């Protein structure tokens, strides 16, 4: 049962990822990204991380990709662009080398860390302890990082508002 779920979810993730790269229409690529994110959410559920799964869907699928789509639609880049024209000549070979390198690194990390994975688990008690455990570590051990992140977000929002406001010279 677990294997079936794993295979299906992985198929979702991979086909979505391939779609993001291969689709010529940016909106379709964004939809591929949504598929990938859902696949990851399914993986989270199958590993009993319900909270992460819900947040994955709410934040990534529900907010971030919607924002992507918003930008794509408003800027009108939804016409398939000519992919044969290369702005940077070296781009593709370098991307291939980097991709292969990252794959090898991740595979190596998984092989070396195979026996340490699964040794620790957040799931220790039934119920919504999942959420409690997360809250406890967020608001005790990592509270500084947490607060700094919120400051970063506020600064980003305020900065955007300040930068995009055009101050007109008043005549008086």
């Amino acid at each position, binding site marked *: 049962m677990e294997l079936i779920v794993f295979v299906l979810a992985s198929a979702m993730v991979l086909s979505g990822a391939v779609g993001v790269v291969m689709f010529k*229409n940016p*909106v*379709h690529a964004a*939809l591929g990204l*949504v598929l990938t994110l859902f696949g990851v959410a399914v993986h989270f559920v199958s590993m*009993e991380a*319900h*909270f992460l*799964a*819900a*947040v994955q*869907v*709410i934040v990534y*699928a*529900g*907010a971030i990709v*919607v924002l992507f*789509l*918003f930008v794509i*639609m*408003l800027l009108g880049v*939804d016409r398939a662009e000519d992919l044969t024209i290369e702005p940077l000549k070296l781009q593709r070979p370098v991307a291939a080398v980097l991709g292969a390198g990252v794959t090898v690194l991740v595979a190596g990390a998984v092989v070396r860390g195979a026996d340490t994975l699964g040794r620790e*688990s957040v*799931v*220790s008690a*039934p*119920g*919504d302890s*999942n*959420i409690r455990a997360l809250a406890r570590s967020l608001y005790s051990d990592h509270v500084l990082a947490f607060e700094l992140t919120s400051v970063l977000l506020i600064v980003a929002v305020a900065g955007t508002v300040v930068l995009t406001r055009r*101050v*007109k010279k*008043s005549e008086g």
Partner: protein
Amino acid sequence: MLPVPAVDPVLDTDSWWWQPLAIVGLKVLVVFVIGLVGTMFMVWFERKIVAGMQNRIGPDKAGPFGLLQTLADGIKLFFKEDLIPERSDRFVFKLAPFLAFVPAFLIWSVIPLGGNFTDGHDGTVEWFGQVTRVQLADPPVGVLLVLALSSIAVYGVMLAGWSSGSKYPLLGSVRASAQMISYEAALGLSLATVLMAAGTLSTSGIVIAQDRLTDWHLLSTGVVPFVVFLIAMTAELNRPPFDLVEAEQEIVGGFHTEYSSIRFALFFLAEFMNVISMSALLVTLFLGGPQPLLIGSFDLFAVLGPFAGTAWLLLKVFLFLYVYVWFRATLPRLRYDQLMDLGWKVLIPVALGWFLLLAALQLGRDNDLSQVSYVGLVIVCLIVLGLGYLLFTAAISVARRNRDREGAAY
């Protein structure tokens, strides 16, 4: 793997025989039928009540009191020609109605539809010798699932508008997604107060926490989050007076302008089903779901025995369905800047301030403060909130003055 409570106690059983399958199958069927029949009823109900309020008769030809009018309309829609605009993105155009329709159904799966929650009962019932709940699934993240589903519903509207390849739908969908995203923040903040009061995310846990009338979150969180939730929900559902998404005078039909036949019917169905399922969510969160409203010790639906909870839920949901129709019949549509002002400058600050106040009070209660220091805590909270309010109004008025001076027009 460590054992984690299943989304339904019936799945925890060791003896897998026909009972669990039958129970789950039955529940799926019931949820599906409720969705469809409820929607059919809601369309009729709305037309009839609006007609009454406008001194008309409304549908009265098909069936008794015109009850079958929706069915007739549905059959008619099925046989209409299905048009797909030439400039549309065909795949996305076909996908969008389902993205709107499926989440509307799925919300029902986490709403407790009945069962006995009184006097500390946990709402479980026994069917075919198996313990289960009268709800399709009770995941530990119950309410978050609803939020996730409503954020998926945004895709339906957005993609429908974009894929039509025409300007009015695109305008409608951009409006819709901006509105839904803005009001989701207020919705989430008012919902967070309920979650804090109940101490759990699971919908059945929230109902269990509302055992007595004074524990109903409508009262125990103060009425403010309820009001914010009601307004934000109306905006989230694109119902009047927040139906700028389909403002006929400005953008024809909004995101579903280009849709016809059964695809349009799916959008239509999804809208009405969302009204019902979000009303049910509101009742679950703030009015105790299937909890009875006792007058002394008199239970209005006591004669129904095990179905009393369901009857109470239906009664409360009805109340809100009527309120929505009432909104539609009496309130004029907001202007777009009024909509955004209300969302960002009123609802979100109010919900956030109220949430912080309740959090501080909860903290005081958890730490067993003495009477005196508790009063002190309340005073400090009120001072902080007052200062925050003053700062906020000052900021708004400064911004407005600057805007006026620059002569910005919008």
